């Protein structure tokens, strides 16, 4: 059984007991435990079920590479599925549940799949469930999807209780990984004066070395680490972070660091995760190496574990996964596990070494009384939910002549693979190291940075060296090289001297026994989580899925939550063998970020809830909000759609506003309209290029409506332009247009006509702008003026239609434009934004006697539609040109050039068959459905109904008491009076007459009073 040992446990504090629960059972652990070590200490060997066959799964590793021990962690709005028990620090009150089973972990209906596994090889679903066809949708797929997934989905109404944030950091050298290699590299890099950041994913510094033993500079490793850490902490130019994982390396030295701040103490004040966006001149990956499993039958039974992990459990947490252990290996390092277990009082039954010769560690093991079996292999592990016994055989051969040994745990080691993820994310290439049977970074093909030079260096075991001494010299050199590449001069210092027992060469063993018969191969797991076995990879190869990428996708090898950290190399070795090829030829799949999964919330950072996205507000925003505004998002702005009074529907409110504005007085907050100042000796010439009509001839004091097209000919914006003085114009844009058109102008000025003397400034937000509209508009202004004594003359004579004046309106400095988008007597009045609310209040107050009401954007739309005014975004959609809208009058014939002019001459744009703007009126007065299409005769070559037009705007006009609409109709202007049909999506067909688009006050008398 797995138990807590009486001694050992360098990371736990036995004086601090911690209570936690697993599947509802309360358990005890110590501070410093991981959830995995604590579960093992409680003899909880089985921790979950595998994905496909629902096989019992126990912990196999001790760190980030763990594929099996995944739990649902926490509860309610702190519940998180698929959390690795091996990297979860234990805390008081932790709750966890195991995953992927029903009804429970011990007895799982889904485990029937393991008995059917023979019928469910890789890719079986591509070959099945094809007939009968209807079964797919109703039987097969629902079934497949029911069995999908691993962890429980969080509750649908779950609102994450935590906050998250980002942080931008800039450093000369970033060292990823805080093992002895990372610490040493950081130290020498920092000694050069470079700014260094060192990040480590776990809560501890030192990595593997303190567990593996040996000495550094004749001191125990722990001591060396402690010293180095305090040295680094004392350096001003060094930033150290643990619980901070290097998640991904991206172009131009961008690295994501994933810092877990409160996962080990949930509920603490402050953000849960911080995503560091680090820019580093040089990145050193000192991410260590990961031990590989061995492929033998039953290597997935709970109790079979990586040798190094078993060693970690004993040394770091004082836990042994079993009482009677067998060690299987192809290298010397696993002997350390046997020795440590034995020294801790655990029975080590055998060391099964696939090689025929081992190094001095083997002698040490033998001296401790451990039986070493050279040339041997595990044929099969027996046991269901935990290891019961092991059948041993010769490594050579197919696995006959077996010897059975009873035991309760197996430690396996297939050699070590450098963690090359960070090296590879941004394009670093690998080479195959034949002696150690692993891929390691190819220093001649690093990822390239902005300057085209390599910006990542690997150090320590992540670069290939495995022996402590080599690791330290390598790291020392890498740290110095990184400092140099970042522009610093490294100090000439000696690397620390690491000493451990010398090791004999490992031997590549990809299958145990070497020629295992099919029955064994079908039980030899490669990918524990996704249930990919040796036989699956061989099947893929046989069926032509020969590329390693095909094999991956066909078998799902390496696609589980661990991303193949344990399985990939073993899998591609099997593939190479099946293809009769070589491992480096087969190559690896692509390493992609993140290194281990990171929370989606951390990626979003602070952008949630209130600050999810900016909401732009006008100076009168709060007033609108308090006065019934039904909000409409327009770009990032919020505008009032209508002011809804208690007891009113939105529709009622709109109708009321429409009528009142025509009959009395309406106020519109028009502050969002863009206002651009264009000034300079060449401003007139410039605006003549920007607008389709002539702006240079506009007289000072006057306004002109202008159209803008893109160079491609399409309408992009419109608005009223006012000439302020000899070389200054003020251009109004649509709400969405302010920044866009400002940018557009700057672009042309800076990149095409840079010798033109023009400056542009965006003054949109300097002003609050209010449209004062309706027959009483002048009266209210005059009243304000009278109240304050004097002011601007707003009479018809002093301020005629399409002119503007500066002056005082009431007590306010204002600029009044006599323009009208409603067809009524109308003034658009700009006051400083800081006066906006006061001005609005004054108008509301003075307007009472004139029947003032604020109105929203929908009313604005209806008023303009009654007048047949087009709206950018309604009548236009990016495919409409001025000619379509009957705006020929705004296309200057005098100007040789303006943006869009050339485009309009292309054959399709000059085509007389283009749909053209008309008014539409249903024969029964009802409202045409928005977006409806008019149909013509017959169908086209693709069998679609022929269409001859569409509705662009449609409203109920309370003033006219009927539906009115505008639309684009083929040959429309020539078809006045004709009836066209618009099939609705409601099954009805709407009949509408083609009419003039001006429905109200055709002669424009009302606006010009």
């Amino acid at each position, binding site marked *: 059984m797995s138990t807590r040992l009486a001694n050992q446990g360098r990371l736990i504090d036995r004086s601090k007991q911690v209570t936690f629960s697993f599947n509802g059972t309360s358990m005890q652990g110590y501070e410093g435990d991981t959830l995995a070590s604590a579960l093992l200490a409680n003899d909880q060997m089985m921790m979950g079920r595998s994905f496909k066959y629902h096989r019992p799964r126990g912990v196999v590793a001790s760190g980030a590479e763990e594929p099996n021990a995944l739990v649902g962690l926490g509860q309610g709005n702190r519940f998180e599925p698929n959390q690795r028990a091996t990297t979860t620090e234990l805390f008081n009150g932790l709750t966890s549940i195991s995953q992927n089973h029903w009804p429970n972990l011990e007895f799982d209906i889904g485990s029937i799949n393991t008995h059917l596994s023979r019928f469910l090889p890789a890719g079986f679903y591509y070959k099945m469930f094809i007939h009968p066809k209807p079964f797919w949708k109703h039987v097969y797929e629902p079934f497949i999807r029911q069995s999908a997934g691993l962890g429980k989905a969080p509750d649908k109404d779950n609102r994450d209780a935590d*906050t998250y*944030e*980002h*942080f*931008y*950091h*800039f450093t000369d050298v970033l060292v990823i990984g805080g093992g002895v290699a990372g610490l040493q590299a950081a130290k020498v890099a920092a000694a050069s004066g470079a*700014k260094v950041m060192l990040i480590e994913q776990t809560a501890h510094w030192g990595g593997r070395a303190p567990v593996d033993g040996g000495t550094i500079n004749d001191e125990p490793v722990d001591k060396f680490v402690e010293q180095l850490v305090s040295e680094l902490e004392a350096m001003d130019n060094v*930033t150290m972070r643990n619980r901070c994982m290097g998640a991904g390396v991206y172009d131009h030295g961008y690295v994501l660091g994933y810092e877990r701040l409160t996962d080990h103490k949930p509920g*603490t*004040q*402050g*953000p849960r995760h*911080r995503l560091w*966006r680090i*820019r580093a001149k040089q990145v050193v990956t000192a991410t260590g190496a990961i031990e590989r499993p061995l492929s033998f039958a039953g290597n997935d039974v709970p109790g079979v574990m990586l040798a190094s992990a078993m060693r970690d459990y004993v040394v770091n947490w004082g836990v042994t996964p079993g009482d009677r252990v067998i060690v299987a290996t192809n290298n010397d390092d696993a002997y350390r596990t046997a020795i440590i277990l034995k020294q801790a009082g655990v029975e080590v039954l055998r060391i099964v070494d696939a090689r025929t010769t081992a190094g001095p560690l083997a002698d040490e093991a033998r001296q401790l009384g451990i039986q070493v079996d050279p040339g041997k292999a595990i044929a099969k592990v027996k046991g269901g939910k935990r290891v019961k016994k092991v059948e041993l055989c010769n490594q050579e051969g197919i696995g006959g002549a077996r010897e059975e040994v009873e035991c309760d745990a197996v430690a396996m080691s297939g050699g070590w693979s450098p963690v090359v993820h960070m090296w590879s994310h941004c394009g670093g290439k690998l080479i195959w190291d034949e002696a150690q049977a692993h891929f390691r970074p190819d220093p001649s093909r690093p990822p390239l940075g902005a300057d085209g030079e390599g910006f990542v260096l690997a150090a320590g075991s992540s670069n290939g060296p495995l022996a402590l001494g080599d690791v330290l010299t390598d790291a020392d050199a890498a740290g110095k090289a990184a400092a140099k590449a970042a522009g610093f001069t490294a100090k000439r210092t000696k690397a620390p001297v690491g000493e451990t027992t010398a090791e004999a060469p490992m031997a590549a063993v990809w299958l145990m026994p070497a020629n295992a018969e099919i029955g064994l191969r079908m039980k030899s797991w490669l990918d524990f989580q996704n249930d990919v076995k040796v036989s699956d990879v061989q099947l893929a190869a046989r069926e032509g899925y020969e590329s390693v990428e095909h094999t991956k996708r066909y078998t799902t090898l390496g696609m589980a939550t661990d991303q193949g950290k344990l399985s990939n190399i073993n899998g591609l070795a099997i593939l190479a063998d099946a293809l009769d090829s070589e491992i480096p030829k087969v190559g690896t799949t692509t390493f992609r970020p993140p290194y281990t999964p990171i929370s989606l919330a951390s990626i979003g950072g*602070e*952008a949630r809830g*209130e*600050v999810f*996205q*900016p*909401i*732009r*507000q*006008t*100076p009168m925003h709060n007033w609108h909000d308090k006065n019934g505004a039904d909000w409409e998002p327009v770009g990032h*702005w919020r505008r009032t759609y209508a002011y809804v009074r208690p007891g009113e529907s939105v529709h009622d409110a709109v109708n009321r506003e429409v009528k009142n504005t025509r009959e009395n007085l309406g106020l519109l907050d028009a502050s969002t309209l863009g206002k651009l*100042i264009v*000034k*300079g*000796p060449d401003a007139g010439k410039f605006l003549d290029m920007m607008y389709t009509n002539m702006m240079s001839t506009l007289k000072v004091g006057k306004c002109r409506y202008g159209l803008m097209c893109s160079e491609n000919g399409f309408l992009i914006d419109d608005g009223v332009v006012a000439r302020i003085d000899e070389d200054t114009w003020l251009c109004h844009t649509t709400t969405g247009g302010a920044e866009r058109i400002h940018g557009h102008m700057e672009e042309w000025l800076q990149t095409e006509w840079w010798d033109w*003397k023009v*400056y542009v*400034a965006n*003054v*949109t*937000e*300097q*002003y609050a702008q209010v449209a004062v509209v309706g027959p009483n508009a002048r009266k209210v202004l005059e009243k304000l003026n009278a109240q304050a004594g004097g002011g601007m003359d707003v009479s018809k004579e002093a301020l005629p239609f399409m002119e503007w004046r500066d002056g005082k309106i009431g*007590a*306010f*400095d204002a600029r009044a434009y006599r323009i009208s988008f409603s067809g009524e007597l109308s003034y658009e009045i700009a006051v*400083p*934004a*800081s*006066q906006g*609310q*006061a001005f609005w209040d004054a108008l509301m107050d003075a307007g009472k006697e004139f029947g003032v009401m604020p109105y929203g954007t929908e009313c604005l739309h209806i008023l303009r539609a009654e007048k047949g005014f087009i709206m950018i975004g309604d009548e236009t959609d990016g495919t409409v040109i001025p000619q379509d809208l009957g705006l020929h009058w705004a296309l200057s014939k005098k100007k040789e050039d303006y943006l869009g002019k050339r485009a309009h001459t292309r054959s399709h744009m000059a085509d007389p068959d283009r749909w053209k703007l008309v008014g539409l009126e249903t024969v029964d007065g009802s409202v045409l459905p928005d977006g409806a299409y008019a149909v013509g005769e017959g169908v086209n070559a693709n069998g679609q109904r022929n269409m001859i037009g569409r509705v662009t705007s449609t409203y109920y006009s309370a003033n006219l008491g009927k539906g009115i609409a505008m639309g684009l109709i083929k040959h429309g202007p020539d078809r006045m009076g004709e009836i066209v049909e618009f099939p609705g999506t409601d099954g009805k067909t709407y009949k509408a007459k083609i009419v003039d688009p001006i429905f109200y006050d055709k002669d424009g008398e009302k606006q010009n009073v």
Partner: protein
Amino acid sequence: MSEPISALNHASFEGIAKVEECGLQGMITLRGDLSDKALAKAVKDATGQKMPGQREAFVEGESGVCWMSSDELLVLVPYAEVDAKLAAMTKTLSGTHSLAVNVSDARAVFRVSGTSAREVLGKIAPVELSAEAFQPGQIRRSRLAQIAGAFWMDDTETFRVVCFRSAADYAFNLLKVAAQPGSEVGIY
């Protein structure tokens, strides 16, 4: 005129740094040839400051001048004086191809202060904010999470942050989140 009101009317928040809306600040956008003597004179007259070089900000209290781009300055003057200063400036610049406009009301200004002020900004702007890289006397236009903004330092623990008035509410909430208690980064 009524009492002018700034976007957030002096709202404030205290977390790992203090965040305050500063109220109204007179601001003039001045575009022109920065090497032109007339411009230098206009700036000097309005603020007493010399022409700033690339990314320099010479600000004292409510007066000062910031380099905004190769042909643009932000001139700071007390809010009450902006009309007069602008008029004087326009006069000085008459005959010079330039543009001077009052943008005081188009902006919101925040003060972020305290020992963690650099960190608060470091969470929302993709800018190196270590003491070696950014100091009083410099200005940086950049991104504040999802909006454009500019900031300079009044002293080693105080930033002034400028953004568009319409985004003031977002900017304030953003700074509040970035300054939330318990969120010290411990870097600067």
